[in-house]
Structure formats: C-alpha cells, structure tokens
C-alpha cells in the first residue's frame, strides 16, 4: 500500500475540521498471535508508526544491571496503528491489540472509548481466539468475529465456527481474507453496523 506521509495527513485533517469538530472513533483489531491483525490494519488504513513502552523486570531482561533513572528499564513496542480519514471531520482509528500474552497490559487502555472490536480468528487455530472473545464479552464491548481463511485451510461452515467459539447468536461472524481491502472493509462495516444495532436497540 501507499505510505502517505503522515505530516500532511494530520494537518489536512485538522485544518479541514477547523477546531473542535474533529471526531475520532476507535475500533480494536484483536486476536491471537499471527492471525492477521497487522495485515488487516495495513490493507484498509494508512499505517502510522506508534510505539508504547513495556516496563521490564530484571528477570525479563536477564541481567542485573537495569537500574534506570527510576529503577526500571523499558523497551518500546511497536503497535499496529492505522487511520482512515472520512468525510465530515471524521477519523476512524484502528488499533491492533498485541497478540502475545506479555503485551496484554495494553488492552485495557486500548479498550477505553473503543466503539467496538474485531476478533480475528484463524480457522486452523480457533482456540487462540478464546481469550479475546472472553475479554470483550466480559467488558461489554461490542465485537464481531472475522475468520481468516488462510491458504490451504478448508472453507469452514460459519455455523461450525460459531459453535466452536461458543458465540452468542447476536455476535456477527464473517469469513474473510484481510489481505484483501474489500474484505477488510466489509469487516469494518459489519462491526459498525453491529454497534449501531446495539445502540438503537437500547431503550
């Protein structure tokens, strides 16, 4: 995909909005290790560099010389971060939640203010998605499941996937190939529709 230099993009958005009308919305892309999160953010949005820090314990560094200024050592972790600039001063931000367990500390911060989430699942390793499904269920964050059909994997019957993941009937489920922009787009549309349904269904 084209890498649009971020500088111009930010200024354009800001200039076009003329003040506090800039509306930012956030969708999380979650799922287990290597399931396609980075691929999805890249195929549908303008990827931007964003780093966060992970504080390391002495043990995780494996050396004892870790006395930083405040006694901690940290490492920076690249996050999946993308933005989609839409008309009407609207910007949709996508954040990939790191798949590895040791980065889970970031999930709570990322989930705050998120309108919804996409749980990516790999048909060959559905169990890897349990944690993400549980997380959003417990948090009450509207989410959908997008099943990535990797090469060589048979196309699954969506109903079987639903059963395997023990998904509530109300949770949208879609087979997809997130390397494909149109497919990634329909995933995002599905999750926003789902959020809208839930919003309008509320008394």
């Amino acid at each position, binding site marked *: 995909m084209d890498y649009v230099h971020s*500088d111009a993009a*930010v*200024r354009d958005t*800001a*200039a076009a*909005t003329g*003040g*506090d009308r*800039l*509306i*930012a*919305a*956030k969708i999380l892309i979650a799922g287990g290790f290597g399931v396609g999160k980075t691929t999805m953010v890249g195929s*549908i949005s303008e990827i*931007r*560099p*964003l*780093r*966060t*820090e*992970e*504080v*390391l314990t002495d043990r*995780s*560094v494996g*050396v004892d010389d870790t006395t*930083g*200024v*405040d006694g*901690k*050592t*940290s*490492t*920076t*972790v*690249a996050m999946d*971060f993308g*933005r*989609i600039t*839409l*008309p*009407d001063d*609207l910007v*949709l*931000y996508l*954040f990939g939640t790191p798949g*590895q367990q040791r980065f889970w500390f970031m999930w709570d*911060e990322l989930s*705050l*203010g*998120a*309108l919804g989430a996409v749980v990516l699942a790999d048909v060959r390793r559905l169990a890897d998605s349990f944690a993400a499904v549980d997380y959003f269920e417990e948090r009450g964050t509207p989410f959908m499941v997008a099943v990535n059909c990797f090469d060589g994997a048979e196309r699954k019957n969506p109903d079987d996937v639903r059963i395997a993941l023990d998904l509530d009937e109300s949770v949208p489920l879609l087979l997809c190939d997130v390397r494909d922009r149109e497919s990634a787009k329909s995933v*995002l*549309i599905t999750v*926003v*529709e789902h*959020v*809208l349904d839930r*919003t*309008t269904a509320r008394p």
Partner: protein
Amino acid sequence: MSSDRWLDDDAGPVVRPYTVTRGRTRLREDGLDLISVLEATGVAVPRRARLDPEHRTLLALCRQPITFADLASEIDLPIGVVRVLVDDLRDENLLRALRPTSTGDVPDEFVLRKLLNGLRAL
C-alpha cells in the same frame, strides 16, 4: 546504541527509561485516551516554564486539534513519554484536551451513521 540490548524481534532495543522526561513516569491519571483531541491554548509560554525542545515540538503540533495517538506518532516518541510531556504542558495551561474521554464515551448514533456511510463509500 551500545547500551541497547535486544529482547526479541517484537520488542525494540532495551533503553534507559524516560530520558526525555528526566526519569519521571506518568505523574497522575490524566484521563487521556489515545483518541482524545488536544489543542494548544495559544497562551504565551511563561518565561519561568522550563520547556525542552520536545515540549516545543509537541506544542507546535497542537496548533491544530490533533488526537493523542497522532501526536505520539508525529513526534515519534513512545506513548508514555508523550503523556508526561502533555501533562507538563497542561500544567502550564499551554495545552488543553478538547475531548478527554476518560469516561470512555463512545460515538452516538449520529456519528455511527456517518461512520457507516463513510466506510461504505471507501
């Protein structure tokens, strides 16, 4: 770079923390979400304010409303470091958050519909 150690491919080099922030970590709960919108207040920088070059860059980037995530991405510093810098600038009343989303407020129906139309038209 000589003091850097690599954990693995996912983690970057191990660095001394917060050199930019003089060893301070987050000072208080600032209520800022990654998509909170920040803007410079336009107040003149007080003479006594001790601003680092990073503070100034950040302030310049906030002349137009910008989200916290875009800001961190633009200035190319880790999120935690940017939090501290933003905090400093808010303390000096140089920066304000237009939409602190500490309550985790999510878009309303109107915004969701616009979002949906925007995505469909992509």
